[in-house]
């Protein structure tokens, strides 16, 4: 249960914390798109990804996210990273340049294009993890739901109950810690009655998990009934008119941050469009006038 600390909100008061959650979500989407735009030649990709990485590291440091926590969250991805490398290295791909074979295992040649491809995917994954981590550890979960609600506003036109969805989301978020406590309590109660949660036997494991999940669900359903009673008694009417206590505000710091991110996104997008139009966009070539390395 302790791995759930990944990306948990940490209450500091930094520049990134103070940004409007709506801006943060939009910036995250822009950067994700930028990361996934593929630009030919490795050196260019490496330089661009490196620049994004550098930017994100600076953001992480300024928003007081501990680099240690970041590596901790990556440790859960080790298996995935290894699997990715195995898949890329050992599955033949006709697009790999036969001249790039490093060594041969039997008749199968290991191509270093494969390492490049695998490495690039991993780099993207790491960047994505960094982005989500920055978003979730600098934004209160409730602010995220407010932002999502704001982005869903156009759906009002088709009579979509945005407010109800947002309320459901915020209650779900509110009850995560409560249900985690409950889970721990049930684990202890069942363990004291002899249920073994650390067993390696898969059939026994399923049995012991059932002894956790059923009471958890029963209690969650009971809770929901009491909660709905409490909400009703406090005058909540999902279809009635309500005012809002929290209000999001777009300020000048949001504008500055947004311009910076837009510049990064715009830069990478321009390069991609140039590639699509048939230009050679090798950065090494542009800067040093040298020939492409690979």
């Amino acid at each position, binding site marked *: 249960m302790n791995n759930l600390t990944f990306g948990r909100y940490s209450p500091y008061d930094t520049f990134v914390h103070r940004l409007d959650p709506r801006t943060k979500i939009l910036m995250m989407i822009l950067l994700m798109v930028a990361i996934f735009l593929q630009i030919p030649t490795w050196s260019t990709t490496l330089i661009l990804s490196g620049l994004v990485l550098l930017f994100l590291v600076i953001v992480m440091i300024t928003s007081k996210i501990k680099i240690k926590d970041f590596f901790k969250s990556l440790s859960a991805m080790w298996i995935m990273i290894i699997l990715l490398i195995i898949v890329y290295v050992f599955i033949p791909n006709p697009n790999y340049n036969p001249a790039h074979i490093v060594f041969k295992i039997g008749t199968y040649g290991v191509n270093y294009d494969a390492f490049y491809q695998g490495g690039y995917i991993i780099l993207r994954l790491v960047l994505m993890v960094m982005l989500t981590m920055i978003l979730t550890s600098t934004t209160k979960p409730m602010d995220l739901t407010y932002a999502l609600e704001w982005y869903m506003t156009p759906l009002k036109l088709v009579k979509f109950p945005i407010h109800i969805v947002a309320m459901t989301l915020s209650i779900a*978020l509110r009850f995560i810690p409560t249900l985690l406590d409950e889970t721990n309590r049930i684990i202890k109660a069942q363990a004291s009655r002899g249920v073994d949660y650390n067993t390696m036997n898969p059939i026994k494991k399923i049995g012991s998990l059932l002894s956790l999940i059923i009471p958890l669900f029963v209690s969650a359903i009971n809770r929901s009934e009491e909660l709905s009673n409490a909400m009703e008694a406090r005058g909540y009417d999902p279809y009635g008119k309500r005012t809002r206590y929290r209000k999001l505000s777009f300020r000048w710091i949001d504008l500055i941050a947004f311009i910076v991110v837009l510049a990064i996104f715009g830069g990478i997008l321009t390069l991609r469009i140039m590639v699509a139009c048939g230009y050679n966009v090798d950065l090494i070539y542009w800067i040093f006038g040298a020939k492409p390395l690979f």
Partner: protein
Amino acid sequence: MKNVVVNKLNFSYDKETEVLKDVSLEIEKGQYVSIVGHNGSGKSTLGKLLIGLLTPKSGDITICGLPLNKDNINEIRSKVAIVFQNPDNQFIGATVEDDIAFSLENQNIDRKKMPELIKKAASDVGMIDFLTKEPSYLSGGQKQRVAIADSLVRNPEILILDEATSMLDPSGKEEITRLILELKKKNKDLTIISITHDIEEAYKSDHIILIQNGEVVLSLPPKELFNSYELIEKYHLDIPFEVKLKKALIDNGYKVDEESSLDELGELLCR
């Protein structure tokens, strides 16, 4: 003025067992009434009926002069507030201030007025320093205080406490009981209906209504109830500490005044 009038109320969850049978009661404005009874006596059901969470099978409920029905329910709910048993399951907002704001949002109150109202309600229950705290950082007693603040912020005429202290530890229990008495002192017009099985808490109220097997069997001030050993034995009630102490003192030859408080009894013992 009668604030709550219940007339011949019947209720059952299923066809076989009747939970409430011909319950009639009247509660004066500004009274602090305890509804006591054993588990399954129907006292919590009565609380839910009073706020319209359940619909009675027959009989009527009149609250602040308004009959409880579908048309009036929203108006009545703005006058009656209820605090439930489980502190966790009535905490709706992400933080203390958001939770108090939830009640205000439902009442369509202008957001500019909210901070002031929230601060007032929070300081009334002594939670002003915890406004930005999340529920997981609060104790059970503190969460119940917030639940009371949620109710108070709406300026109710009637406050129902549905076993609000039963899930708290002894110090939390005392905290809440003391808070209720304080609120009572500050606002003489507030009617408090406390559904409880804590006899110590009931002893501090103005009036006790005893419910057994869905019927009102007793309705009288606590002093009268606990002075009659006949009644206590008949209904298997616990005896409050103060009454026990007085009896023990009298049995040991002390002269005890009927009206003397616990502190005075303590002084008497130390003399």
